[in-house]
């Protein structure tokens, strides 16, 4: 990822900063400047997510692009945040086979990937188990 593209959303990536529609109250992460429900009638303001939630679905990525090749296998999940939206993120587990739908997770700040050409390391949000695992 080019440096400007990463830098532009660094606050949003580091701090889980999304947006909230002041008209209908809907929250957005990734951030949206335009509420699809209220359209021009709405206005969005920054909204910081705590980021706790649960796994809606997941997979174990075993073949990745170059930037993520060294991290395989890793768990990728869609997470339902308590505060409304769903996000895609990695779940850090000791054993990838521990991932379960319904697992509670919380965010942590981690290294995300390495840019092939430049070797630049990108940081952002990953997730870790939050409470004792539910029975599978």
């Amino acid at each position, binding site marked *: 990822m080019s440096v400007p593209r990463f830098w532009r959303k660094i606050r949003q*990536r580091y701090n889980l900063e999304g947006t909230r529609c002041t008209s209908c109250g809907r929250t957005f992460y990734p951030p949206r400047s335009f509420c699809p429900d209220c359209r021009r009638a709405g206005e969005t303001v920054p909204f910081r997510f705590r980021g706790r939630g649960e796994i*809606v679905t*997941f997979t174990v990525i075993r073949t990745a692009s170059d930037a*993520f090749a060294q991290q395989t296998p890793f768990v*990728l999940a*869609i997470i339902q945040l308590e505060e409304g939206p769903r996000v895609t993120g990695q779940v850090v587990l000791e054993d990838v086979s521990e991932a379960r739908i319904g697992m509670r997770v919380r965010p942590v700040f981690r290294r995300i990937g390495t840019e092939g050409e430049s070797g630049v390391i990108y940081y952002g949000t990953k997730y870790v188990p939050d409470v004792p695992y539910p029975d599978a």
Partner: protein
Amino acid sequence: MRDVAVIGIGCTTFGEKWGTSFRDLFLEAGALALEDANLSGEGIDALYVGNMSAGRFVEQEHIGALIADYSGMASRHIPSTRVESACCSGGLAFRQAVIAVASGLEDVVVAAGVEKMTDVETSTSVDALAAAADREWEGFVGATFPGLYAMIANDYMHRYPLTREQLAQVAVKNHYNGARNPIAQFRSEITIDTVLRSSLVADPLRLFDCSPITDGAAAVILAPLERAREFTDAPVRVLATAQASDTIALHDRRDISTLDATVVAGRRALEMARLTPSEIDLVEVHDCFTIAEICAIEDLGFCRKGEGGRLTEEGETALGGRIPVNTSGGLKACGHPVGATGIKQVCEVVQQLRGDAGRRQVEGAEIGMTHNVGGTGASVAVHILGRA
């Protein structure tokens, strides 16, 4: 709007075509389609080409002009337009061509699709394909294309009855059909064991759940229905064209296991053609992964949600079944040159409606459907074709 007919089709063989360049691929398909329509190229009024990522795969944009030129049409300065919608690029190129003819602006129009994917290394093509999903909020955290469909599969299997064996049966059926299609990339039959023993790519999807990396091109020629018999004895009428969009990111969908864009495009197409799913004789659906075919046949209305696995297991989607799905072998066995797939689907349905599909012929096929998906369902094109 005028009625539109397909008057010619042409398709390269699909596969890893190391000796063939991007421009040669298109030319081969275009020449076959012209021959099929008894045209010399002089009679072509316009050209639409679907291509996803020549910018990444062969560092070339401006594909419309390139292809008009190498087809020998630059000297007549015909309009030539590239349409991109990830893996749905071919379907949308076909749709734009249909609209151009239907509007009355153009008479004889080529709709083509081409993708040359094997000039780059696999890791580069994995990354290029990830550009069909949300690069900033899916790709950035490590999502691959198989990974996103794997998350659909896990969500689906958590909520509906679908066994790992039923999922594998999709690939088994499509290889069976591909073995009967001369252009298919994979022409050998496989068993459920082949699928279950192949390596995991993104759990629960294994290598044989995934469509391959493919070079290929396909072209069809359209004309007003009223002029179709000037060119061919077996014109095929375009009964409906429909297109729908959805969120670029999978996590933003209303329902992870239902492709709403498929539901909406399918419904719009059936309404336009005034048909019900039971009146469709065969369908080419977008089986980029086995789970995608299960979702597609449900979302298009061929069975209820959650019944796709059973329908497949019982052979209802196989040749001779109630609704043969992917007689070409689908993306899985025929191959998936992303920009060409939507056009190849049309070629297959036309061959079936003409009764020219040989050992994979659906007896008495009169109406066929194509279903082409971009990304994880952010774009869908559905077309219905019928014997004219």
